[in-house]
């Protein structure tokens, strides 16, 4: 997890004041509401620091519970006390080294059966556990009835039903922490054979340990190397003898120890839950659950994706945002009223034509830069971000990751690559940076190439949708071309690049109805930042283009590109859009929009230009990010490759359309 190294100034260790009093550790699976509970208990007094020697962050905060000062520690998510990931290792280190006075085990009421296994392990380890059965509200909505007092009786530890996000159960949790006294905990019995093995090893242990001997024996039998080292230190001279006995037992049970143990623990959980949990005869399957199932099943997921893309991208962003809103803002407001007015004002104030051109000319800062930014790009990104926020809040993206996992594996990626790909539809520069989260170098290179080539950024996508939505055939040709190139280049890359495709696993968060306030806040924030970012760049690009015009360099550049434009069947003026595109992808797409409005391109040329421009070299920022992430050689190679593929595809598409007469 050391992928994102943080600057010390931002994320360096923060040493909080030493807190005397009870030490309370929060443990549990990820996504069960530990952090919500941590914040509810601690308030604002929180210190976040890296756990010594790791990149894993641990939050610590103070609280006064029943007049007693407490230190609350939010541990990283863990599934078992036998660690696999670095996060789990750190969480267990905290339990071992910090010897908390209370361990709050938070679990999800909807997944009691799966999560109680860890409760068994914690109780078995002799830790002072309080069980918080969280997210009770959603469990009740699903029709589940959980008998908390009976579970308390069976486990022999305090058990509290809670919904911490709704502040339910907080008072009881505080009370349980304040009044916690170690008492008799339940003892879980395994089969005679397993118990025999545990006793054999446990009886050999004579050192001083935080965890119970039974728990240590089980961890040793599961080949936990850290515990083996700990035991070697604690047992001193006897260490070698203990290790030898453990080795013998592991050899005896080499075939099915892990499976047997997990099956026996499952049986214990079943026994614990008998009479505790009541599910309705016909469990109410919520609409969210049904939708979730449809979204991940290829048979229903693919049509659902098409529906989402059609109504979300085509109808809402393309037709409404890029059509209706752009016509209103760009056509009526800018072209009809603002530009003539500002031109008059500027010309009356500034007598020199060359300076007038800088502000209100063909490439003027106001008449081109501001018009593109406010009139064309802003309404498109606004609708795109609104649609994006709705999808994000509903929990659709992780389902999309599962849906495309099989397809992505064919192109050398996994479902995890959906994160950079989806982010690429927002901004390819950031998405290129996010490729570092992929597991292997092979995946990162393939994802970088595909992002540079076939994933248009939000503004570019919007403008292209606006351009092509008036001729749906052109839009279909553009979509099919991009999909084909994405798959073809991906398949080739997967064949050429050596290495294996890693496994992909992720836990699905529940699907929810997006909250309007949340969606609007996100859209507003994204738009605000986007606008602040593009406006200076658009103005700078306008100035450079103006400079190019007054020095006649721009004309020469267009002349140089004319043969390439002719080869792909585009008018000479289309070179302008490609030059714009190098400053920013959306700037180039807006240039195409202008050409279309002037009636300089027919549907065939439009779709050829749109495909070539989408595939063409990414903007300067993305190129610099590729250089940073993959190195200069790789970035130059990708840049050259992408340009060649773009113009070759444009040429091929033009020939195809001319021959077949499809458009």
């Amino acid at each position, binding site marked *: 997890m050391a992928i994102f190294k943080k600057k010390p100034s931002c*994320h360096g260790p923060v040493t909080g004041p030493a807190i005397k009093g009870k030490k309370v550790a929060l443990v549990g699976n*990820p*996504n069960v509401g530990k952090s919500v509970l941590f914040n509810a208990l601690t308030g604002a007094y929180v210190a976040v620091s890296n756990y010594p020697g790791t990149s894993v962050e641990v*939050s610590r905060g103070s609280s006064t519970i029943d007049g007693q000062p407490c230190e609350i520690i939010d541990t990283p998510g863990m599934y078992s006390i036998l660690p696999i990931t670095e996060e789990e290792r750190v969480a267990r280190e905290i339990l071992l080294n910090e010897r908390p006075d209370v361990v709050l085990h938070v679990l999800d009421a909807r997944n009691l059966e799966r999560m109680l296994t860890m409760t068994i392990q914690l109780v078995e380890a002799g830790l002072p556990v309080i069980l918080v059965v969280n997210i009770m509200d959603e469990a009740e909505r699903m029709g589940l009835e959980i008998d908390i007092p009976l579970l308390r009786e069976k486990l022999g530890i305090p058990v509290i039903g809670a919904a911490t996000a709704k502040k339910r159960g907080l008072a009881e949790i505080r009370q349980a922490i304040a009044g916690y006294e170690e008492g008799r905990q339940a003892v879980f019995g395994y089969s005679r054979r397993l118990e025999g093995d545990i006793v054999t090893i446990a009886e050999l242990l004579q050192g001083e340990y935080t965890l119970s001997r039974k728990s240590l024996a089980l961890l040793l039998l599961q080949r936990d190397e850290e515990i083996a080292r700990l035991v070697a230190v604690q047992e001193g001279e006897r260490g070698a003898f203990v290790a030898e006995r453990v080795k013998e037992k592991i050899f005896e049970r080499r075939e099915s120890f892990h499976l047997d143990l997990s099956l026996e623990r499952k049986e214990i959980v079943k026994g614990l839950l008998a009479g505790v949990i009541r599910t309705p005869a016909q469990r109410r399957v919520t609409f969210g659950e049904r939708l979730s199932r449809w979204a991940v099943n290829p048979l229903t997921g693919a049509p659902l994706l098409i529906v989402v893309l059609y109504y979300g991208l085509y109808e809402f962003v393309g037709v409404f945002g890029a059509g209706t809103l752009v016509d209103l803002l760009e056509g009526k407001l800018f072209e009809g009223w603002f530009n003539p007015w500002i031109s008059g004002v500027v010309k009356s104030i500034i007598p020199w034509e060359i300076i007038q051109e800088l502000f209100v000319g063909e490439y003027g800062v106001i008449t081109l830069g501001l018009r593109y930014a406010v009139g064309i790009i802003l309404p498109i990104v606004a609708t795109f971000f609104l649609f994006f926020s709705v999808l994000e809040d509903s929990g659709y*993206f992780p389902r999309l990751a599962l849906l495309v996992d099989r397809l992505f594996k064919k192109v050398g990626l996994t479902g995890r690559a959906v994160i950079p790909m989806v982010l690429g539809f927002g901004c390819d520069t*950031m998405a290129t*940076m996010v490729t570092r*989260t992929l597991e292997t170098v092979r995946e990162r290179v393939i994802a970088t190439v595909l992002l540079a080539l076939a994933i248009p950024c939000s503004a570019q996508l919007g403008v292209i949708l606006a351009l092509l939505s008036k001729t749906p055939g052109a839009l279909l040709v553009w979509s099919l071309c991009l999909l084909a190139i994405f798959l073809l280049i991906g398949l080739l890359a997967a064949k050429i690049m050596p290495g294996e495709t890693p496994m992909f696993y992720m836990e699905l*968060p529940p699907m929810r109805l997006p909250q309007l306030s949340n969606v609007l806040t*996100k859209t507003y924030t994204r738009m605000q930042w986007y606008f602040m970012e593009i406006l200076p760049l658009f103005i700078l690009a306008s100035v450079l283009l103006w400079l190019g015009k007054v020095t006649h360099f721009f004309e020469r550049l267009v002349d140089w590109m004319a043969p390439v434009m002719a080869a792909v069947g585009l008018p000479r003026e289309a070179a302008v859009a490609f030059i714009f595109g190098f400053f920013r992808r959306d700037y180039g797409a807006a240039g195409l929009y202008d050409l279309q409005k002037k009636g300089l391109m027919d549907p065939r040329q439009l779709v050829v230009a749109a495909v070539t421009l989408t595939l063409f070299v990414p903007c300067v920022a993305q190129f610099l990010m590729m250089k940073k992430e993959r190195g200069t050689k790789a970035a130059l190679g990708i840049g050259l490759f992408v340009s060649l593929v773009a113009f070759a595809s444009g040429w091929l598409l033009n020939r195809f359309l001319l021959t077949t007469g499809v458009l």
Partner: protein
Amino acid sequence: MIRCGYCGYEFSEEEGIRGCGKCGKPGGCRMVRCPRCFYENLPEPGTVKKMKKLLEKLK
């Protein structure tokens, strides 16, 4: 608290990975990355935070 738009993990702004400024955008993107899946999330805008504080004071 931020709920990750991708994996649904809930984390505080301090817990998230933020402000690397490596993208070359002026002042960085200010997004907060989820510590679990690295998806970029939006922190709560300052104005919304201020409004919430004001509401809490009024309560």
